[in-house]
């Protein structure tokens, strides 16, 4: 006799149900697309891929032979023109040229095209000369000026114990003092002048070096960064540390996702229009089976496209493994959006917002792959590294992908919570739907603790985003802002679901219950927060901003046991304050939230002060 309630039979049953729904979703969705739409979509992806490949690899030179230059074959400039892809060498007698180069002078037609051709000619000559100099056996003679380029982590330039931005530092060469005056540096002599200029520009950002070690990107197991990492060479050979080619190629991974989520969102919302999905709900399958079955084809499509793009542009398994969680986050956010949206019009707004936000969130940090460890908040940074042939450590991978993956799973969990008759077909504003989704995951007091813990990926992402956004501001401004933002994000994360539960009459609005829920929420958050200890693996807390965001809450602070337990007390107290407010309705909750944020900010400031 078989036991149908065992784990294996249940797993098999769920898998079969998911497979059936997925198969149905594929055939049904295929029926809703006309051939023209499919062809247009395919062409759009091809064009996007082609442009990316062309731009990154130089495979498509749209400016080849753009300007015609009349130059004699025995002219010293002939090789420079001939080697340039932009310039097309022609005989001097050719009347159809923008530029004529003779032994002694250059003749240019007085037109914008002529002037542009002249600029291109100058660049071509400069590049040619650079190349020639590089071939010289005596490089010291060829390049008498050498620039040493070292990337320094901005926050680490603040020495421990010093006040930030007091503006009266001396800017001494040992870099031990803070300065806000732009530093000073000797400018006598070429070499010194370069070095002084570098120091001055660093100091101009409001801080001076505290140590000698370069920070650059987090330790990626390589030697001294890559591409635009620490380098030395002639001034002309120094280029900005942006891995442009890899970035463009990495962006190609994001393009198809924006198409896929449109179809996916429509499919989910379609179930909610006219109660169409009601009959699936009454079938012998769970909401989880339905959601998984409907999502699987789109996820499979994304994975397939990711693998294809990776193969096309030379990405490895690391690229695929880093991009798939991004795809999952795109899908999960779209799923939740489609579960909350009241119409296709609202869904369009949701999907566009998701596209813009997630594309920005993943792409922009990757630009700074070689500059700061903050870039690792985006898994696309891993792709850039992979494409650049740089090793990625397990810690980097976990730090970059972990929060994204967890956030995606939690979003699916929340959305599935409202994938039921009572919520799917009601037309409520998005904020109320969000509260419904939170409430749907609360069945008993301990669920409050679980939800607080599950909020950690979002808290982590939000805090990293704050750091990334505020990174460009002066340190003396960013630290208080980061501390405030951290308090806001964390207090919301600990209290919104408690408020939702009270609003939905899940619990009695009593003092005892609110104390219990507050304590549980604070405890759950504290436990979940420990998972952010992964930041230790990539050295983010070594950044001043990283410390501001994570250290005050206890992560990474192992110096004192008190500081380890203090966050638990903080979270429990502030969560209880908001829980008490939530028992009395929205206005009181808002006031209590402000109070909790205030307590949290004061706490953070105290911790930062005590840490020096």
């Amino acid at each position: 006799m078989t036991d149908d309630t065992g784990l294996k039979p249940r797993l098999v049953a769920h898998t079969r149900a998911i497979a059936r729904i997925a198969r149905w979703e594929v055939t049904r969705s295929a029926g809703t697309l006309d051939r023209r739409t499919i062809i247009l979509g395919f062409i759009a992806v091809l064009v996007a891929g082609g442009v990316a490949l062309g731009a990154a690899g130089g495979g498509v030179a749209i400016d080849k032979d753009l300007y015609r230059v009349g130059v004699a074959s025995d002219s010293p400039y002939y090789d420079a023109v001939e080697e340039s892809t932009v310039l097309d060498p022609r005989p001097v007698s050719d009347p159809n040229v923008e530029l004529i180069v003779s032994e002694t002078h250059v003749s240019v037609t007085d037109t914008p095209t002529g002037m542009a051709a002249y600029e291109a000619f100058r660049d071509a000559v400069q590049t040619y000369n650079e190349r020639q100099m590089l071939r010289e056996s005596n490089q010291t003679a060829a390049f008498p000026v050498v620039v040493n380029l070292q990337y320094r982590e901005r926050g680490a330039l603040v020495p421990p114990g010093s006040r930030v931005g007091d503006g009266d530092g001396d800017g001494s060469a040992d870099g031990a003092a803070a300065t806000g005056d732009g530093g000073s540096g000797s400018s006598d002599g070429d070499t010194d002048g370069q070095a002084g200029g570098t120091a001055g520009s660093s100091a101009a950002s409001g801080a001076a070096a505290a140590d000698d070690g370069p920070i650059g990107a987090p330790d990626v197991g390589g030697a001294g960064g890559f591409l635009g990492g620490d380098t030395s060479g002639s001034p002309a050979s120094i280029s900005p540390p942006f891995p442009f080619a890899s970035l463009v190629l990495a962006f190609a991974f994001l393009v198809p996702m924006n198409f896929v989520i449109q179809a996916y969102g429509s499919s989910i919302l379609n179930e909610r229009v006219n109660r169409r999905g009601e009959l699936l709900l009454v079938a012998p399958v769970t909401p989880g089976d339905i959601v998984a079955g409907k999502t699987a084809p789109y996820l499979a499509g994304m994975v397939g496209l990711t693998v294809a793009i990776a193969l096309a542009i030379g990405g490895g398994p690391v690229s695929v493994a880093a991009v798939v969680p991004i795809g999952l986050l795109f899908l999960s956010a779209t799923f939740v959006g489609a579960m909350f949206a009241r119409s296709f019009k609202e869904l369009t707004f949701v999907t566009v917002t998701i596209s813009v936000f997630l594309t920005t969130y993943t792409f922009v940090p990757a630009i700074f792959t070689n500059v700061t460890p903050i870039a690792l908040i985006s898994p696309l940074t891993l792709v850039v590294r992979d494409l650049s042939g740089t090793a990625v450590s397990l810690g980097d991978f976990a730090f970059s992908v972990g929060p994204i993956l967890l956030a995606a799973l939690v979003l699916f969990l929340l959305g599935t919570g409202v994938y039921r008759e009572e919520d799917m077909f009601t037309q409520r504003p998005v904020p109320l739907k969000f509260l419904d989704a939170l409430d749907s995951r609360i069945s008993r007091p301990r669920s409050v603790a679980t939800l607080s813990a599950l909020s950690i990926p979002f808290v982590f992402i939000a805090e990293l985003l704050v750091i990334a956004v505020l990174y460009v501001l002066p340190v003396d401004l960013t630290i208080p802002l980061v501390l405030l933002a951290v308090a806001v994000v964390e207090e919301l994360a600990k209290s919104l679901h408690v408020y939702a539960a009270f609003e939905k009459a899940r619990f009695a609005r009593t003092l005892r219950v609110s104390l219990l829920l507050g304590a549980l929420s604070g405890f759950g958050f504290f436990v979940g927060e420990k998972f952010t200890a992964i930041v230790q693996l990539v050295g983010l807390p070594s950044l001043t901003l990283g410390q501001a965001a994570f250290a005050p809450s206890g992560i990474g602070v192992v110096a004192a046991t008190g500081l380890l337990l203090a966050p638990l007390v903080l979270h429990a107290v502030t969560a209880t304050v908001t829980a008490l407010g939530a028992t009395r309705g929205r206005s009181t909750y808002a006031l209590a939230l402000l109070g909790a944020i205030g307590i949290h900010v004061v706490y953070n400031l105290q911790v930062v002060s005590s840490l020096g």
Partner: protein
Amino acid sequence: MITVENLRKAYGDFPAVVGSDFSVESGEVFGIVGPNGAGKTTTLKMLAGLVEPTDGTASVLGFDPEEPEMRRRLGFLPEESPLYEDMTPRSYLRFFADLYDVPREEGTKRTEAVLDRLDLEYRDRRLGDMSKGMKRKVAIARSLVNDPDLLIYDEPASGLDPLTTNVVLEFVRELRDEGKTVVFSAHNLFHVESVCDRVVIMNRGEIIARGTIPEIRAEHGETTYRVYTTVSLSETEHHPATEPEGDQHVAVVDEMSDVEAIREAAEAAGGSVADIRTDEPSLEDIFLQLAREAPTTSAAEGGRGQS
């Protein structure tokens, strides 16, 4: 087959169903009747496991309504026919047969059989291109592909033309004859009266009458007698006056003793009673009477509850 005890459902502060108790026996057609907002649909959805009760219990086919095994043996037809309009009747039914773990060959056989039975010709036409009646037939067919023991139909003939309505009601009778248990709701009381073995009447979320139709009639209805006489009679303290009707005279009375008094009076006047007819109240009459008597508080007054 179904046992319901103190079943309640509230949407926020709004009580949609305020404590239902009833049971449904195997093989019967059980009707839930009432006006819009009475709580019929909410009750059916709680039985189908779609809506979670706020309080009370329901046992359907021996299971909690949310158990997948119960759903496997249930055929549910919602009030609307929310079909996937890009599918054809054939592909739609096969998909659901597959979802209910019906073996492929058996699923195909059942699909064709049920489409034959409902006389649905256009099996490969897009559902979106079909008439409302045809869509309803497809929806009914879908409720049968898993060969369920229990069918829950919410307003199965709602919005259909009289001809299709007749087909649907006849089909429900056939299902009963096959031994299926059918629970269905309607606000058209004629439909209920014509197919149901037992009914509950709901109003404002609560059951206000229950039983077989004769039982309800006996308990809540007022039977009247039309007594036809060959002579005209004036009103006395024992009977009312007769009214001329054709070449006879008629008096309407509520009690058999009044009938007897008229017969005696007619004979005393040299005439006789030509005919006695019984007028039984329709379910609609009873419902209207009960609705008028019911307290005006609670369920139907606003809120987001379903009928």
